[in-house]
Structure formats: structure tokens, C-alpha cells
């Protein structure tokens, strides 16, 4: 007949806490391995981290991307230059327009028509890029806030993002994956009344930003979970190839729009916010400031945008008007060759880069003289930033992985390509 405690153990399947010995009470001395992701709400669905933890403290993190590897390069090698635009949309799907612009610029570089795109098209590109940058930052901040429990901020920013999506939809016809930019210009002009609706929208977003700042900036929980978390030094940031808001939060004063100006950015006035401590809070603050700068740029653009064509007048790259394509054999052939064989890009290699939502987004193209790229490499900021995360999370608690990842703003499509 077993004694009372053993019987209890048999019945309950475990010992009662008071029955535990001292050794059993103590935490196990050896390190533990915890798997996080790939399907984890904070891992954005596409990253797996194998954490080695000492209690709650992270000793080592093996970050494994690749769960969203959709073969951007291989697909591009089998598509015409124009057909690559939809693939670029889905790289950084939070700011697709910027990717479009980057790809268009890279192709224009190899074609030798870089800088010859009509002014109005360039302005439109800047407008849609900045709107995309805003959706990117709104999503990044909103989602991160939600992951830290601030659900209201998420809903407010999502509301603002929705306004921008609706505007972008009137421009391109799609809410998210626009494929709006073309080599040599953009696919269609801005719709009537766009000026007024964007002005209106920006005013409302101004308000939303103020609201969310009020909710977050002096919020003790938010502050405590962001401040001092995932800090990186300036030197580390540079050597690890960090760019964009993350590098700027570390004090790296570098912005492609200002330092390697492209498009019509030289004609626009904007400030580049730079942080000091390089922690999550600084990354958040830099992003909020960039949102305000975006609004500033957009307002200038609306004032300065000239009238004129939106596509370069070059038969090598521009499609003929639809009426001509249907009614004359010459334009029909041109249309056909553009669509089926692709824009014939002369042999050469070029690297073009723009300031994406997360920093320097570059496309490296090798052209072989046919209508498709021989190689199309995407320099994705997310991938570079994610590679630093192993260092960033070291020494922090498991819960801190969430804000660090949120503020790195790893976008699966762009990181895994």
C-alpha cells in the first residue's frame, strides 16, 4: 500500500509544490533551447529563432529566415523587365511603390535614360513613394505598439493607412500591390481631384499622428519596453550595413534621398532625423519624425508638380497609345514586341538604389541585350537588418524580442526575397 504522498502523486500525476525538495525548486542550471516561430505573431510569419536561454535571458539566438523565399531573382530571370514590377511589389509589400521606383530606376540606368524621365512622372513617383513610406511607417509603428499591448494606436494608424490605401487605389487601381510605375515613367496620370483629396488626407493624418504620439510617447509601459532595448552603436550599425531609420536611430546621418539624390528630391526640402542611443525608442521616434517629413515632402510636391507627359517619348521603352495599337500595324507591332519580348535593354550591369521604407533598397541588374534581365539582384535592407538581430537580442529577455523585431521592421517578402 503506497503512502499518502505517493498516492497523491499517482492520482494528480505530479507532486504538490509544497512536497518538492529544494533541488527540485531550483531552476535548472543548464541552458534551455526555445523555438520561436516561424508561425509566431511577432515573427511576422517568416522567421524562426532558436533561442538558447538562461532562465528568461537570451544567451544566443539563431535567427533563421527563408520561410518566405519566393525566388525573386529566379522569377525575374524568366520575366520581361516590365513583368518584374509585380514581383517588386511583393518584396516590401508595405511600401510597394518605392520598390517599383527602385526597379524602374535600375532598368533606366542600364537603358541609358536615367534622369530623362519627364518631370511630372518623377514628381508622381515621389508622391507615391512618400505615401508608401507613410504606409510602411504607420504599419510598423502600429503593429509594434499592438504587440506591446497598445491596441488603440494600432487601430488609429490602421485607419490612417486605410485612407492612404484608398488614395493609392484611385491612382493605381490596386490597394496594395500597385505595379504602377513603368520603365520611363508611370502607367497612368494622377486622377482628377487627387490634389484636394491628398491635402485633406494629410491633414487628417497629421491629427492621427498627434493622437498616437499622445498615446505612446509618455506611456510608461511603452517607454519602458522600448527604451534601452536592442541598442546598437553607430560603428556597429555602419559595419553591419544598416541603413534607413535603424541606422539613423544610431546616429548615422545617411539618407539616400539626400546623399545620393535621385528623382526630384533635390528640389524638395526635408530634414533627416537622427537619433542618439540607437535603441528601440529612438527607432520609433525617428520613424514618427519621418512620417512628419513625408507629409512635408508631399505638401511641397503638390505645390510644385508641373503639368506634362507622364511617360518618356522613346519608342524603345514607351508603349504606343491604345487607339494606335488597335488601328495601325506599326503601333500594333510595337505594342506586341514590348509586351511579348519585353523592353530590349542593352547589355550592361548597373546598381540603382533608393531610400526604401527600411533604408537603402537597391537593385543590381545584369542585362544581356534581350527583353529579360540576365540577373536581377535585390539588395534588401530587411535582410541586412535581420542579420544584426542575433546581436541585438543577446542579453535581453525573451519578451524583448518582440519590440526589437517590431522596430527592425523585418518584412518577410523583402528579407527572404
Amino acid at each position, binding site marked *: 500500500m503506497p503512502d499518502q504522498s505517493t498516492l497523491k502523486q499517482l492520482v494528480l500525476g505530479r507532486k504538490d509544490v509544497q512536497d518538492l525538495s529544494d533541488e527540485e525548486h531550483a531552476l535548472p542550471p543548464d541552458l534551455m533551447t526555445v523555438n520561436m516561430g516561424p508561425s*509566431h505573431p511577432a515573427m511576422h510569419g517568416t522567421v524562426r529563432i532558436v533561442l538558447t536561454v538562461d532562465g528568461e535571458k537570451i544567451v544566443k539566438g539563431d535567427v533563421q529566415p527563408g*520561410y*518566405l523565399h519566393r525566388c525573386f531573382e529566379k*522569377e525575374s530571370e524568366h520575366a520581361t523587365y516590365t513583368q518584374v514590377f509585380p514581383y517588386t*511589389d511583393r518584396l516590401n509589400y508595405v511600401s510597394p511603390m518605392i520598390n517599383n521606383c527602385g526597379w524602374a530606376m535600375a532598368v533606366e540606368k542600364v537603358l541609358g535614360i536615367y534622369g530623362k524621365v519627364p518631370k511630372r512622372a518623377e514628381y508622381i513617383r515621389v508622391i507615391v513613394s512618400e505615401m508608401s513610406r507613410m504606409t510602411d511607417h504607420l504599419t510598423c509603428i502600429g503593429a509594434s505598439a499592438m504587440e506591446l499591448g497598445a491596441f488603440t494606436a494600432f487601430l488609429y494608424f*490602421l485607419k490612417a493607412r486605410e485612407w492612404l490605401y484608398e488614395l493609392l487605389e484611385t491612382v493605381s487601381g490596386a*490597394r496594395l*500591390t500597385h505595379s504602377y510605375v513603368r520603365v520611363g515613367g508611370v502607367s497612368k496620370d494622377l486622377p482628377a481631384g487627387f490634389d484636394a483629396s491628398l491635402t485633406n488626407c494629410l491633414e487628417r493624418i497629421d491629427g492621427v499622428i498627434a493622437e498616437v504620439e499622445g498615446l505612446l510617447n509618455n506611456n510608461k509601459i511603452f517607454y519602458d519596453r522600448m527604451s534601452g532595448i536592442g541598442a546598437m552603436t553607430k560603428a556597429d550599425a555602419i559595419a553591419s550595413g544598416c541603413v534607413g531609420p535603424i541606422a539613423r536611430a544610431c546616429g548615422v546621418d545617411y539618407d539616400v534621398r539626400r546623399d545620393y539624390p535621385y528623382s526630384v528630391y533635390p528640389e524638395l526640402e526635408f530634414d533627416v532625423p537622427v537619433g542618439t542611443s540607437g535603441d528601440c525608442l529612438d527607432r520609433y521616434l525617428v520613424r514618427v519624425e519621418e512620417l512628419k517629413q513625408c507629409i512635408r515632402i508631399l505638401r511641397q510636391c503638390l505645390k510644385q508638380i508641373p503639368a506634362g507627359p507622364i511617360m518618356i517619348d522613346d519608342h524603345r521603352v514607351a508603349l504606343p497609345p491604345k487607339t494606335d495599337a488597335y488601328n495601325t500595324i506599326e503601333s500594333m507591332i510595337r505594342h506586341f514586341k514590348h509586351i511579348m519580348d519585353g523592353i530590349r535593354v542593352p547589355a550592361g550591369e548597373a546598381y540603382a538604389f533608393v531610400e526604401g521604407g527600411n533604408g537603402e533598397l537597391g537593385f543590381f541588374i545584369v542585362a544581356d541585350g534581350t527583353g529579360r534581365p540576365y540577373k536581377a539582384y535585390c539588395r534588401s535592407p530587411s535582410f541586412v537588418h535581420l542579420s544584426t538581430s542575433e546581436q541585438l537580442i543577446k542579453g535581453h529577455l525573451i519578451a524583448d524580442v518582440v519590440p526589437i523585431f517590431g522596430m527592425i521592421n523585418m518584412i518577410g*517578402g523583402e528579407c527572404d526575397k
Partner: protein
Amino acid sequence: MGLELTTTRLENAAEWAKLAKQSILDKATNWGRKFSLFTYPFVTACCGMEFMSVAGPKYDIARFGAEFPRFSPRQSDLLMIVGTITEKQGPALKRVFDQMAEPKWVIAFGVCASTGGFYQNYSAMPGADQVIPVDVYIPGCPPRPEQVLDALIMLMDRIQAGRGHSQVRTKREQLVATANDSE
């Protein structure tokens, strides 16, 4: 049409469904089930942005009783596959699905989850239904939020009719068990 196509993947699932007459209790249970779907968002890619919109203030999936995402498969009964499933992701998806308790339903959100879409290559899987059975497919790259709500209503009809994959499977097992008992 789309619904019927999906059921052909299970052997004679439609036939089984016809055999399975719903009792009043079944109807009541299914009525309850359809209005309290707990979603596991298996978010991998671009469609996640639209999933946020669906969950967000304007489209508000809460109107259909399916607003509350559960990030544990054991607490959820609707698996939303939102985005591209790669070969590397496949085992994780299967694991999550297997961990969900019956009855469970699956929505493939967007063309990538449905067929692979324009990602036909060495890494992207040609549709999540290569790994798990899917109840409703939503086309679109990404689908508009309205389409998602439409799909949700389609799924609700399906649940009410007892024609979800897992419902049919359960029913079939029951029928087989009864048949074996009576022998």
C-alpha cells in the same frame, strides 16, 4: 462550384455529405459554430497587410463573430492561410493544422495560398492544399477585404450545412463506426 471542387480531393466526400443527415442538434451546434469562429492567422506574406485591413476598423471582421485571433492552434478552429506557403514552411503549416482540434476549417487567403499564384518555382508551394485540405479559396493578389468577408460568409454556410472538410471526415468516421458495429 468552388466548394464542390475542393471536396473532390477527399474520396467521395460529397457522397458522404449527402448520407449525413443533420439532426436538429447538429443544426444547432453548427449554428453556434459558425458565429464564433476563432481564427488562427497563419500570416506569411503580403496578404497579411490586407488581413490587417480586414481586422481593422473599416472592414471589421468582428461583425461576423470572427474577430478574435488566437495564436495557439489549440484554441482556434479556423486556420487562415494568409500568404505564400513555401516548401520550407510546409512542415510548420502541417504541424499547426494537426494541432488544431476538430472540427476545424481552413481558408486559403489569396492566390499564393490557393495555387501558388505567379510564384511557380523551386521554393513556393503550388497551393497550401498540397499539405492540408482547404475549405474556401479566396482569389486575388491580395484579395480585397470585401472578398474575404464574402469567403467568410461562404464558409459559414458551409459550416451550417455540415460540409466542411473536417465535419465530413468526422461524419464519415461515425458512419463507418456504426456500420462496423452493426455487422
